């Protein structure tokens, strides 16, 4: 409401004869002015804000005469998925194909991490640690917890490695493929500093390469070590930011991954240079297609599971990612929003820190009025992990129900029976990227 008024007042500056530049629009002008004032690149949270081809550009072909739909609510549409069936003795058995992506304690408050665990556990899915180690809260409240191995190795230890239900070797993330982690000084509290063995209050810039391996040949040896340490029980995921996805997925398979997480450029971040977020990586849509191509060529599709993330918001996104060949998806940004990030409830306080509900992306700053992306005890105390967990569970249920609704309409008794052939594209771009025909045609550009 208030934001609308502000926009109106800005637009109110317009008079006949004034023309805003498309090239130098008000955001560009503001950024040049900021850069010249501050002398440092813009660091922010959230994910890419530019428009890119996405699952919205695809539509399902519901059943009609040639195909028969399933009854909603009454006829079963399965949602379960098993991740890590290739080598691990104990693969993850999830009730829904929507998991919670890795987000660090440090980036998020301890109660926020707890809420993610509570919500995921309530609906039978997994949550993931992050670049900062495992907290007791999240372990206690997560039935299924994926433990990340990152370049920084903050909080890394063999006990937590074994307490994890799966291991995720993080090579990169969609918001910044080729970049390392960041946590600015105001979020390095005593507890975060202790977990990361860092001085309090410093600006932490993590390495972009792992300290003890480089390249796919080393990765194979690293994965072998992790398997030996955990006695071949845990599934090992490899997470990559989407760029040269076809090669990266094939190399992850060759290096011995049980499952591969591909994070498209829309994937969120707590703190990254804006230029990195908006200009590196490929969208989730083409990344999904390339990843499936890579797996199919190796004969490993469904043998090595594919988890897609980066801009999953609705059950439609879930269903479309699965139809293109993903085994599961992960949510990050959407989960934070579900817990109360950018809630109008806090609009007044967002305004005090120069933002507004619906626009807040200063997750790096640690001043989150919602108590999620902060290490300030007072702010974090506002966040109720039980209520937050319930919201996460509700949201995950809605995503699942929506995906089931679409799958039933296509006549599927399991989400995994969705196929690319159930989809058409609305735009030439999305048709080319997803390799499905433009709606009403048989045309797949570039095929």
């Amino acid at each position, binding site marked *: 409401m208030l934001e609308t008024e502000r926009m109106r007042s800005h637009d109110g500056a317009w008079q006949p004869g004034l023309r805003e530049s498309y090239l130098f629009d008000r955001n560009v002008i503001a950024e040049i002015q900021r850069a010249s004032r501050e002398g440092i690149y813009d660091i922010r949270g959230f994910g890419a804000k530019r428009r890119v081809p996405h699952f919205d550009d695809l539509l399902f072909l519901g059943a009609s005469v040639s195909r028969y739909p399933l009854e909603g609510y009454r006829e079963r549409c399965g949602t379960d998925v098993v991740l890590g069936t290739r080598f691990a003795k104990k693969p993850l058995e999830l009730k829904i194909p929507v998991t919670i992506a890795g987000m660090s304690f440090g980036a998020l408050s301890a109660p926020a991490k707890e809420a993610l665990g509570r919500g995921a556990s309530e609906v039978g899915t997994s949550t993931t640690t992050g670049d900062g180690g495992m907290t007791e809260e999240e372990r206690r409240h997560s039935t299924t917890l994926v433990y990340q191995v990152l370049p920084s190795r903050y909080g890394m230890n063999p006990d937590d490695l074994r307490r994890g239900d799966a291991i995720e070797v993080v090579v990169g993330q969609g918001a910044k493929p080729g970049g390392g982690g960041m946590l600015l000084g105001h979020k390095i509290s005593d507890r975060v500093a202790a977990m990361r063995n860092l001085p309090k209050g410093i600006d932490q810039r993590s390495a972009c*390469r792992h300290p003890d391996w*480089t*390249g*796919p*040949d080393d990765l*194979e040896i690293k994965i072998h070590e992790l398997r030996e340490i955990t006695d071949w029980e845990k599934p090992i995921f490899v997470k990559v930011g989407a760029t*040269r996805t076809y*090669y990266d997925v094939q*190399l992850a398979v*060759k290096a011995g991954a049980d499952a591969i997480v591909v994070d498209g450029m829309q994937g969120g971040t707590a703190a990254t240079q804006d230029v990195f977020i908006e200009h590196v990586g490929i969208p989730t849509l083409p990344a999904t297609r390339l990843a499936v191509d890579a797996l199919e060529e190796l004969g490993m599709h469904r043998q090595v599971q594919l988890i897609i993330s980066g801009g999953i918001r609705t059950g439609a996104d879930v269903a479309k990612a699965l139809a293109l060949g993903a085994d599961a998806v992960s949510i990050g940004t959407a989960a934070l929003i579900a817990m109360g990030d950018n809630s109008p409830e806090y609009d007044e306080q967002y305004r005090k820190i120069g933002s507004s509900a619906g626009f807040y992306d200063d997750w790096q700053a640690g001043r989150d009025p919602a108590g999620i992306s902060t290490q300030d005890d007072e702010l974090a105390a506002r966040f109720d992990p039980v209520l937050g967990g319930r919201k996460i569970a509700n949201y995950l249920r809605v995503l699942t129900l929506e995906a089931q609704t679409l799958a039933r309409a296509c006549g599927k008794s399991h989400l995994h029976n969705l196929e690319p052939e159930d989809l058409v594209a609305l735009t030439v771009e999305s048709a080319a990227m997803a390799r499905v025909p433009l709606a009403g045609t048989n045309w797949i550009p570039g095929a």
Partner: protein
Amino acid sequence: MSAGRVIEIYKEVGRPPQFVEQFRLEDFEGSHGLGHTRMATESKVTTEGSHPFSTGLDLCLVHNGSLSNHNRLRERLRREGIDFQTENDTEVAAGYLAWRMREGASLEEALEGCLEDLDGFYTFLVGTADGFAVLRDPIACKPAVLAETDDWVAMSSEWRAIAVLPGAADARMWEPEPTVVYAWEKALV
């Protein structure tokens, strides 16, 4: 696949033990040899894409790593008349060495030129008619071990490959410094 009078190059797609048997490696005689297995990163798993790449007469290159500016360099070298058969980054490095040496550079000079003109990660091993040379990029992530005795010199990614050689236990062993060209000729070995 060899170009030259002294060096012979054999390549195949498959497992090393099959290769050894197929080409009867144990019957080979000579003063020095290079062996390489490849985990293809961006180009295809083919015989053509296998290392070593011939860098001209009696010169060949194997590479561990991944270059990041080889596409434009390949175009530049094509204009200089260097032929390329694959999209492989290592072939570009080989072509670069061939071009520099054609223009009059010594092997050492050509390798030093890599530090200026090649971007990315590389541990290079170059075989010549009478010896070999080693170079690592400035960051030097990809492994390399050198060992030397009065009787032989060896280079490998891992010590285990050298450890089986006679007298390896007493060899002088070290890891090559980044950006330093190491070269041996038979006369000196």
